[in-house]
């Protein structure tokens, strides 16, 4: 009768093929289904916030900055737009990399359910990150279109602001995800990250004024911030800001490095937590 068990083993092996191959996509599909319950908010934010920020900073505040001609001929609108699109991507990515992971282990512990099905911890992480991409793509695309409406992108290369912003958002989000995945007791870490990491990096990453305005001993805040790298890269493509070639390379490689680190690290942490 060992034939019966061999049949059972063979059936199991066959049934394992699809989940092993496509498991990450099933998780992403699940997350994206979850977006449906709040798509109105997502859409409103994605459309409303570029108009508001570009108008407030690129038009309103710009009247104060441009009368000084402080940026050497570049209008403040054009200067600030790449920072704003990258910041929008960071905001959305951090949100999608924080709550779904915190919830998935604790308040709505669906990760354990996924893992009891043939999905591995690494696939769960992949799926969540695919869903983050799925949210960043329309967010940055809409942002870019609104930038065009405002006339904030002089160069046709500026369309690269979209992938650059997505890369910046992912770099930020994935590193935060790797920390959030370790949080077992929620005592306000998300608020802490928001106030002591996201906001300071948003404010001091050469976003609203060139990093060189800051004293040299504070510039490291920009150097470690993916937002500074993303913003500077965005400025190169959108209006041809001048910088040494090696620095442009750093602006590309550093966020990619953070993505790889955050992605791998989150996979390890999630797999470890599921394997109790």
């Amino acid at each position, binding site marked *: 009768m060992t034939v019966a068990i061999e049949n059972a083993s063979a059936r199991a092996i066959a049934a394992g093929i699809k*989940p092993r191959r496509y498991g990450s996509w099933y998780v992403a599909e699940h997350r994206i289904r979850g977006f449906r319950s709040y798509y109105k908010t997502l859409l409103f934010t994605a459309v409303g916030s570029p108009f508001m920020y570009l108008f407030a900073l690129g038009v309103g505040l710009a009247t104060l900055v441009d009368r000084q001609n402080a940026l050497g001929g570049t209008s403040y609108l054009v200067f600030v737009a790449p920072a704003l699109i990258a910041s929008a991507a960071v905001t959305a990515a951090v949100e999608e990399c924080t709550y779904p992971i915190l919830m998935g282990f604790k308040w709505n512990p669906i990760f354990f*359910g996924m893992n*009891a099905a*043939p999905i*591995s911890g690494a696939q769960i992480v992949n799926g969540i990150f695919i869903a983050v991409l799925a949210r960043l793509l329309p967010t940055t695309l809409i942002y870019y279109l609104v930038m065009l409406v405002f006339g904030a992108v002089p160069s046709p290369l500026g369309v690269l602001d979209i992938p650059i912003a997505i890369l910046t958002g992912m770099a930020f989000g994935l590193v935060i995800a790797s920390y959030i995945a370790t949080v077992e007791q929620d005592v306000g870490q998300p608020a802490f990250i928001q106030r002591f990491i996201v906001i300071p990096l948003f404010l001091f990453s050469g976003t609203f004024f060139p990093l060189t305005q800051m004293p040299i001993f504070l510039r490291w805040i920009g150097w470690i911030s993916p937002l500074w790298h993303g913003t500077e890269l965005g400025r190169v493509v959108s209006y041809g800001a001048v910088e040494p070639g090696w620095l442009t390379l750093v602006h590309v490689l550093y966020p990619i490095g953070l993505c790889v680190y955050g992605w791998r690290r989150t996979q390890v942490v999630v797999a470890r937590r599921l394997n*109790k």
Partner: protein
Amino acid sequence: MPSPVIAAKLLTKKYKGFAAVDGISFEVEPGESFGLLGPNGAGKSTTMRMVGAVSTRTSGSLQILGLDPNEHGPEIRSQLGVVPQQDNLDMDLRVRDNLIVYGRYFGISTSACAAKADELLEFAQLSDRRKSKVDDLSGGMKRRLTIARSLMNDPKVLLLDEPTTGLDPQARHILWDRLFRLKEQGTTLLLTTHYMDEAEQLCDRIVVVDKGTIMAEGSPADLIRTYSTREVLELRFGSDNNATVATQMFGIGDRVEVLPDRILIYSNDGDGDLDRIHANGFTPVTSLVRRSSLEDVFLRLTGRSLIE
């Protein structure tokens, strides 16, 4: 003899030196309904997670459907249905969507998932709640939805961790009825429980677990025959007197156990022994003769109650 669906040998799981599961061995045959009976903290849930191929064993060997979970986790899980102790339904999705999304994890097409979901909602008596939010379901309904979810992939083996803990008696009976149907259809069941009535209702064979080790194994009837008497005489003399009176019960029954609120006398003739006690001049406040249960087996094996 058919080869076992689950075969565990000296299965061990240690957490920082503490052995939650300490060298247990058992086999489960196809179509069998097998129970792990023991108090909270006995290592039942850890065993279930190892069998469910989500927790790596520290040592020993384990084969499920002839495969080792260390190499073939996803393959094994594709053949299992899992009902965890705590429901982990997705609160953000509605009832029917919970089933569809879960089915997708096994690589089942969306249309096949939809058809299967409707069939299982019928089975779980939740058809009229298909569009409800999960949060709005009662505890019993959530449990039935979790069971329906675990059946999305037509599992060969169903793992149920404390399936009816926390449910009211009516909800438990509905659930037992559903599980019994699955058993009739030939699904292998592995369940943990600390309710002896549940074990007696659902299990063909039981292992009694305590502190990570197996204390005894057999069918419910076998275990009662081996480790207890046919009947139990329960006597209450008042909380302050039970212990004193118990010492004076010479020669009555096989064995006497003193609990805080009552004395248990294990006997093959409960009524006869009760008459003898009366004849000896003792007058209990209340007395009761009942059949032995797995609770008595557990008390005998460990000296402790199942539910503490």
